[in-house]
Structure formats: C-alpha cells, structure tokens
C-alpha cells in the first residue's frame, strides 16, 4: 500500500480504490454513485447519499481537473478518463471544487 505523501491532507487514491474494492462485502453495490466531469461541470452537481456510499468521479474532458473538499479529500490531478473515489463514512455536507478551475463546484450531502 502506498504511503500518504501528499502535502495537503487527502485520501490516497490507492487507499480509496482499496476501500471501493472492499466495500461490496458490507454495502450493496447499488449504493455506489458516479459523478462525471463534462465540459468543466460536475454532473450531478449535487448529490444526496447514505453514509457508507462510495462516490467515483470520472473526468471526461480533454483538460485535467481535480476534486477537492477542503480538509476532507483531495484527488490527484485527473487527466482524461482518470477516476477518483471516496467513501463517505460520516454524515454532513461536503462542498467540493476543482482546484485548477475553481468555478467548478459541487456538493455531496451525506445522511
């Protein structure tokens, strides 16, 4: 397993993937949710999910993006078709954005 070496607090991509692989044991696969990045927009821009859900973002643009929620999670730079997953284990509102194109914002509401 890779070590956490990012300067910003974040969840390692490898860890997040591992979590996604382990999850089906305890959680229905149907709970996992996809967010697409198309034309510099997170779609859907707002999601309501249950605790334990894994959300996977896929960048479908020709330009790299990131998925960042201050103090909560931070993806690596996602090039075209790259994915980032995060499992939400705590309830709350998670605002996030792309640190390269800060006009791109989204929200995950976990209950």
């Amino acid at each position, binding site marked *: 397993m890779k070590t956490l070496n990012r300067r910003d607090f974040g969840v390692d991509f490898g860890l997040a993937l591992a979590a996604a692989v382990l999850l089906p044991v305890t959680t229905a696969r149907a709970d996992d949710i996809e967010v697409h990045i198309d034309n510099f927009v997170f779609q859907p821009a707002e999601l309501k999910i249950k605790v334990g859900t894994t959300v996977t973002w896929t960048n479908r643009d*020709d330009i790299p993006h990131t998925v960042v929620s201050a103090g909560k999670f931070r993806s690596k730079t996602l090039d075209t078709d790259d994915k980032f997953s995060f499992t939400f284990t705590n309830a709350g509102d998670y605002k996030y954005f792309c640190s*390269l194109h*800060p006009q791109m914002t989204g929200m995950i509401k976990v209950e």
Partner: protein
Amino acid sequence: MSGHDHGDDGVSRRKVLECMTWAGTGVLWTITGGVPRSLGIIDSAQAATAAASGMTFLQISDSHVGFDKPANPNALGTLEEAINKITAMPAKPSFMIHTGDITHLSKAAEFDNADRIISQSKLDVHYVPGEHDFLDEEVKFYRERYGRGTKGQGWYSFDAGGVHFIGLVNVIDLKAGGLGNLGAEQLAWLEDDLRGKSKSTPIVLFAHIPLWTVYPEWGWGTEDGARALEQVKGFGSVTVLNGHIHQVMQKVEGNVTFHTARSTAFPQPAPGAAPSPGPMKVEDAKLRAMLGVASINFKQNEQRLAIIDTPLQG
C-alpha cells in the same frame, strides 16, 4: 532570471503600449507612440522595421507540452514551429517571456521537452507559471527549473530597455467559486517593488491568468487583480500581458493596455461561444492560424509598446 538592465532609464515621456495584431505565433511587442491598434497580418519585413529601432521582446504562452488530444495531437511540434519562426526573425529580440502552462501535466519529461525546444531560440526566457505547471505531487518541477531568484511562489521583477517588468503568479491557492488569485503576500511585495519608481517608467505586468476580468463564468479573471492594477495606476504606461485563454484579446483603459496571447498548442473558444472553455477542435488546415507568438517593441521617446501577434501560419 538574470535582469536585462539595458541602462538608460531616462524615460521622461508618457509611455503606453501599442499593439499590432498579426495573425498567430507569438506577440511581438514594441514600445512606440500612439494608441494600441491592430495592424492585422503584417509581413516579416514590417516586423523587421519595427524591430530595427528600440528594444523588442517576445511573448509565448500556453505551450501545454504533453497535450495530445484531438485539438492538437502534437503540441510539442507546434511549439517547435513557433520557436522556428522566432529563430528566423531578421532582428533578434532581446529576450522572451513565457506566460505559463509550459506543460500540460507538470511531468518532468514535459518540462524537459519544452526546455529542449524553447532553448533553441537562444534567448533568455522569463517565465511565470500556469496552473498546469504546478500539478506534480511535490510541486517542485517548475520551481526547480524556473524559481531561482524569485520571491514567494515565484514572482519577480527585472528591468530591460528602460521598462520595468513584473512577473506575477496568480494560479496558486485558488478558492472554490473564485478566479485567479495573487494573495496578500504578493500584493505587498508588488507595492514594495514599485516604491520609489519614477511614474514615467513604463511598466509591464505579466501573469498567466488575465489580471482583468475577461469572463468570470469560465474563471477568466483574477479575484484580486484590481488591487494590483490599482498600484500601477499612477504610471504613465502600463502593459498587462497574459495567457490562459488561448486567444488574442485586447483592451485599453486610460494608460493601461491589456493583451492576451495565443497558445502555441490549441485554441479555446471565444467567451460563451461553447459549452466550456476546453480545447477547441478546428479543421487541421486552420489550426496554425489560431496558434502563435507575440512580439513587442519598445522605442525610447515614443509613447507606446507595439504588439504584433503572429500566427504560426497566416
């Protein structure tokens, strides 16, 4: 970042930049008198005339080395075409500035490739970073190569040909929902840098993201850019050179001329003309007319910098 102090700071007249727009490689800037105007496509003989008197420097931008998507499968190749155009110029410019997004993904090999090509120009190059140059895990590749002698996150100034050049960094610490960002530390440094400068000194500010608000819906502007512009307001001639939007755009406000350069890699749509600011795929035959460099000429005793945008291909 060696300075280019060509001495002779005896600029007593009001200086403003003049912009002549070629169609596409880099921007050739010249400092002469008059109001910024576009000359359309000019040939190299005219460029040579402009360059023959006064100090000339070049601007290239957004080379995105490593980009290989349909909008331009060979961004390194078009950068090389731009550099070849520069090498072929009849009069050698004093130096070049690169307004960021040297690479597409901040990979070491991308920086190395960019440097291998750009160094063929045999010109001193003054860089500022784009957001694509700070993507490596430790954010060190740009700084290792271009950060020497700079302050803070990479800002600096130097003098050349009687003009004071200031390279700013506005791609760091961007806030959700916001635009480009200079930050308090950099603005304080700028104030310090300008202190005691004669108001007749022509100022050139360059940064990656436009310092003026071009189109906030696409993030094309700088949150606290107005605070930097406020500080240079009293100067007789201010020229603001940016990249990021991959197209030529110009505006004059009083003594301040704003100019954005073409990319050497791929064009982006005009504000609001497409669903997003992503790379614009054009017919192969048209691509090179939308890429380019700019040449800027400064003449003592005249009032404006003349900017010539040159396409890779008319």
